[in-house]
């Protein structure tokens, strides 16, 4: 069982961890760093509950190895500071049990930053990688559109 000490840059801080080479980033975040916002849902890349942002791209941390995540900027839900998307999730009732929420929010966050003018097709293309079993998805649609629209208003003014 090969293990190494590596440095991960998580939420703006360098964090030294001792990991097995086969440890997923999801495992390391949760078990070594206590960052349990990213959730295990399928460990297979199907559900999106473990989504985090790596170098501003949404990534499924259950399909990512810790040892390949060094020298990258890792942001977990714990690293968001009062992001607009978090507020809109609350306002639009875009979650119930909350288990898929960190994954959805991190996916939305990356989308908002990368494509502030995303249209319906783009939003669908991105968000269909996450599963929510509580809402009807319409609430999540309202939340992300509220942020995108605000961004667009901001840009045009």
């Amino acid at each position, binding site marked *: 069982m090969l293990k190494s000490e590596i440095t991960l840059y998580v939420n703006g801080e360098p964090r030294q961890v001792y990991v*097995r080479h086969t440890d997923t980033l999801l495992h390391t975040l*949760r*078990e070594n760093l*206590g*960052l*349990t*916002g*990213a*959730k*295990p*849902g*399928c*460990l*297979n890349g*199907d*559900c999106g*509950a473990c989504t985090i942002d790596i170098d501003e791209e949404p990534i499924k941390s259950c399909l990512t190895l810790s040892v390949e995540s060094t020298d990258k900027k890792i942001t*977990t*839900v*714990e690293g*968001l500071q009062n992001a607009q998307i*978090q*507020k809109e*999730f*609350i*306002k639009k*009732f875009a*979650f*119930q*049990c*909350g*288990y*898929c*929420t*960190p994954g959805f*929010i991190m996916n939305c966050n990356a989308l908002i930053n990368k494509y502030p003018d995303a249209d319906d097709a783009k*939003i*669908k293309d991105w*968000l*269909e*990688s*996450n*599963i*929510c*079993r*509580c*809402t*009807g*998805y*319409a*609430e*999540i*649609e309202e939340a992300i559109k509220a942020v995108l629209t605000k961004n667009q208003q901001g840009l045009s003014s």
Partner: protein
Amino acid sequence: MMSIGKSIYRKEALEKVTGTAKYAGDFSKAEVLHGRLVVSSYAHAKIKSIDTTAAWTVQGIRAIVLGQSFPLTGEEIKDRPPLAFDKVRYYGEPVAVVVADNETIAKRAAELIQITYEALPVVNSPREAITSGAPLVHENLIFYEKIQHVYPEPNTNIADRTKIRKGDMVKGWSESEVSVEASFSFSPSDHTAMETRCVTAEINRDGKLVFSSATQSPYMIKKLMNDYFGLEPGKVVVRTPVVGGGYGGKVAVQLELIAYMATQAVGGRTVKIMNTREEDMISSPVHIGLDATIKLGCTKDGRLKAAEILYLFDSGAYSDKGATIGRAAAVTCTGPYFIENITCDSLCVYTNHPYATAFRGFSHSEVLFAFERTMDMLAKKIDIDPMQLREINAILPGQTTPTQMLLNNSTVGSLPDCIQRLKQLMNWNEGQRIQVSDHLVRAKGISCIWKTSTIDTEASSGVNLLFNIDGTVNIISGIVEIGTGTKTILAQLLAEKMKMDIHQIHVKMDVDTETTPEHWKTVASRGTLLAGRALLKAADDAMSQLKDIASRVLICSPDDLEVGYGKVFVKDEPTTYLYIKDICYGYKYPNGYSIGGQVIGTGNYMLRHLTHLDHETGVGKPGPEWTVGAQGVEVEFNTQDYTYKIIKAYSVIDIGKVLNQKAALGQVMGAMSMGLSFAGRETYVFDDEGRVLNPRLRTYVPMRYGEHPQYMIHFNETTHVDGPYGARGIGEHGLIGMPAALANSLSVAAEVDLNQLPLTPELIWKTKESGGTK
């Protein structure tokens, strides 16, 4: 100050959007051992031998627990060993649990356990199960311990039969000028809560067994540990943090039993078992399947006269909640219509499928799919508008249900009003099927709904209200926050009752059975009624304590006082008052004398006058009230390749009273989404040997973002007198008409009767090719 009806944000909202909310799997300690299940690779087989030699060679392994003949478990019939013993009865059944220092070691050791099976013939559907000569899933059914009101039929695969005998069938059929008969079927499917089931168990040095479990029924675990293992109830503690979705699936008590056996095997050390997605889908209990046959008769002008119904529920290998589900189905065996003459046999049937537990709606979406499809077939046969057929027969106060409960203006909402509103919302008069282009049609289908709860007649709930020194209140309730927001609703009820700011109310989200008053189970859309009424009683208790102290300070009768706006004041002279914060920990006179103490309000609530069902006729009162509604679906259907898109989904529900507008909309919308997903795409695929071919989210495909329709939801408000501020249960109702409405819309679109689920393009194609359904 008024709180009822407002879209108050859920109390745990910030924790959930910041990722700090802790679920059962998020608590981690270095000394925790990990349990890993070894599951059956056969659906029905004799266990010839289990060889653990190779597994024991793995370093870091602490215990391997195998099945035993005792105890047998099950909520109504004790038919299930927590780990399979002697034989396996479904594919994925837990056979052993390996306990090791970490997950990796546990997994490696689990893979090294060698089990030799001898395959047995498989029972692969409920219809097959009840044929004579079918293999028996339980040869010893006659010997099993059971509760009084369940009726297994020895030497068959029938675990329970509920009978409804209402009116006179001879008369019913003779008055029927037209009849239709149809059969329906669908296989078991899944709840797919995003959080898989997870439990830790440990036994303290003083013998106290402590669970932390993602469950909807922490108090039931405590009760069942006593029932199954003889443990003292006071020595079983269950802690439940927020739960990542339940939908009925986390009602079942399963992993807790295995975790208990595992911690026992390692001297009480903490053992954590968290299902993988695959285990969560088939090793833990599933959403029940159904085979049904319905014969329905009416007069030429559409008045229903007779219903003859057979429901065969696919309870899978064990009866756990399946028997209760079959009973609930009998209670609501027809749609929400008044029918004088009804015969129904609702059977809970053993098969070699994963075993069933509650699923949101508790048999209602399943039964309504079959019944409401039959209604559409009948409407077509007598050439009457399906909406009109439902209007003519809609259940009304003064009429009786299948179990002969006489309904009144409080115990049932107004279905005719719901139907009227749905008609307007759907623009029904434009026609049910509209050709949009050469290969594209738009089609609409509907379903009416009703539901009461079929729960223990002694189910109860308790609430404690603890005052803080600043006059704020902590609500302590045994409701599990599974996502329904019920604990926020409790805060709203208290704010309304005590006329206080919602921000002055704190809610304890976690449940700890040692310190939290019991709430029976967080199920059946009954949280608001049971805990809500308990809370109102606790508030009355607290307010009378506050008035008592205030009356002695203000030197007046407590009768002259009122509580509100953070004060206790004289009703007639509101300028004479005391602040609650100055008396909620008692009152200190200037000379030092003090009276009172911390105000602690307590309240409980139990449903009134519920009965068991009569075994021969089904007569009885299983639930307090009926929520009714009317739902619809509009699809765009391609007549060339049979693909379709769900454009709009409608719900008009008589909710009694809207307590939180957006939360109520969310409950209904989410339930509709789940219902459409179940109806359109979710099923387990079994091979001839009863093995599940798709136990993962890549091949079992719930609805995703962008596939959702536009939701149109409207609430009517017919007061339920017993409900807090008149509210009715709403947690499940958005789901239960969706399968029927989708099937009805697609049957119209494809011009063929679609009587199976899920409604995939392939099913529609096959049905068309075969010239229609049987």
